[in-house]
């Protein structure tokens, strides 16, 4: 059951990733990215990260991607033109080299990790909101406060940059 869910959602994630790179229209790429984020949220649930899965859907798929979709609709971005300046040779050899590189990395990863343990749904119970809250407000308090300042800077920057010049 775990393996079935993993294969289905990993397949959806890879398919949406390829579609993100290969589609011409930016809205189709944005929807593919939302598909990737949704399937990654299911994989996080399998790995015991229930709070992070919910945060992924609320923050990433529900707010950041809405921002992307708004900007695409606002700028009326159309489908890309067909004149890619990359030669066909470079494109095909590039894809082959990427596949070879990924195969090499997969082999290296598989050789490095112990094969005895696998992922069992429910083996890691520590991903609750309680644990994350505890760690966030005690051990990682400084990064938390610095991140809130970072968000404030981002808000101010976005407001200044997108303002109408009078």
């Amino acid at each position, binding site marked *: 059951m775990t393996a079935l869910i993993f294969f289905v959602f990993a397949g959806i994630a890879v398919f949406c990733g390829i579609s993100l790179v290969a589609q011409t229209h930016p809205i*189709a790429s944005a929807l593919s990215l939302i598909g990737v984020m949704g399937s990654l949220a299911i994989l996080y649930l399998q790995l015991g990260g229930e709070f992070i899965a919910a945060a992924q*859907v609320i923050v990433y798929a*529900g*707010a950041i991607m*809405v921002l992307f979709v*708004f900007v695409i*609709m606002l700028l009326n971005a159309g489908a890309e033109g067909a004149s890619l300046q990359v030669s066909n040779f470079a494109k095909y050899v590039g894809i082959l080299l990427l596949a070879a590189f990924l195969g090499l990395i997969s082999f290296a990863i598989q050789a490095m990790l112990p094969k005895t343990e696998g992922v069992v749904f429910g083996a890691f119970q520590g991903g609750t*909101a309680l644990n994350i809250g505890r760690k966030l407000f005690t051990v990682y308090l400084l990064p938390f406060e610095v991140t809130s300042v970072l968000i404030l800077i981002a808000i101010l920057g976005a407001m200044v940059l997108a303002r109408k010049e009078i």
Partner: protein
Amino acid sequence: MDFFILSLIKAAIIAFVLLTTLAYLQWIERKVIAHIQLRVGPYRVGPHGLLQPLADVVKLITKEGVIPSHVNKVFYLMAPFLAVTLALISIAVIPFGPQITIGPVTTWMQLTDLNIGILFVLAVSSVGVYGVALGGWASNNKYALLGGLRSSAQMISYELPLALAVASPLLLANTLSFRDMVNYQSGYWLGFIPRWNVWPEILGFVVFMIAGFAETNRVPFDLPEAENELVAGFHVEYSSMKFAAFFMAEYANMVTVTSVATLLFLGGWQPPFPEPYSDFVPILVFAAGSLVALYHGLHPARRMDRFTLPATALLFLGIAALFGVSFLVPVLKTILMALFWFCGKVGILLFVFIWVRATLPRFRYDQLMRFAWIFLFPLAMVNLLLTGLIVALSSK
């Protein structure tokens, strides 16, 4: 295997009841708005218009589904599907009652309980923005695009006060799952005042309801889909079943928002006063309803009422008798009482939704956004800070 079959049965029951409720919620809305406006509403199709939803469904199914020529077909067809799927999915974590034991099976009256249940509902409503935005954009129509962008901007702006208003009862109850939230609200102060979250969190409840009005695009926040301002907004190019899907999604969102408000603030399925006395309330309510119907049936205003009103009186008497009979079967009593109180509270909140629709004019769009960012969001934040202060001080 046992778990799967049980979940399938529960899902089938919930789906059937929910879809019927959505159809008849439209009937209730039309009747209530009509009576507030001193007219009758749907009257001819079946007794008092009771078959009107059926007629509407048949009309919408058999209508010609026109797909305009220059729309982006994939997204045009995907948007209502996305909207209605996400609207129906969040009912899965809503508990309708306590644990019951039917024969060999012990289960809760809930499809599934996640220990991040409240975050799940927030997540689904966050992603529900895409149905509206894509529907508006894919229609290749400037009114639809404007309506879609405005509606999705409104929905994401009001998600902030909604989430902050939800966070205050979470601070009190210290849990994210709906089941534990309702269990936290059990018990009575001084023996008769229920320990609902609405007494300490009245500000949070008001903020939640206002943000809920805006999240579901209801009056007074329904400028993006207004008929006179924006030519029906983002669903102007949709016809037949796709339009029905958007409509159903809006009513399902309304049911979700009121259910979550009931569970978080009004104590869920628990009665407002202690057990032995509150058991007679359903019987009294339905008996009183049947007496009122009988009285009006003796001096009917219209000729048809000579038959339908006594029939309604008989129906209510039958339901009161059912509640009375359930005293002998404890499982049935638990189920019926929990359902009565939960549906009663949700029904009152839905009546408030419909009442507000018939009463208030709509906000202009900049007034709407200003209200969210300048008034409601700081208010929700102040509420959360006060709640945090009180919890911190009282747990020393």
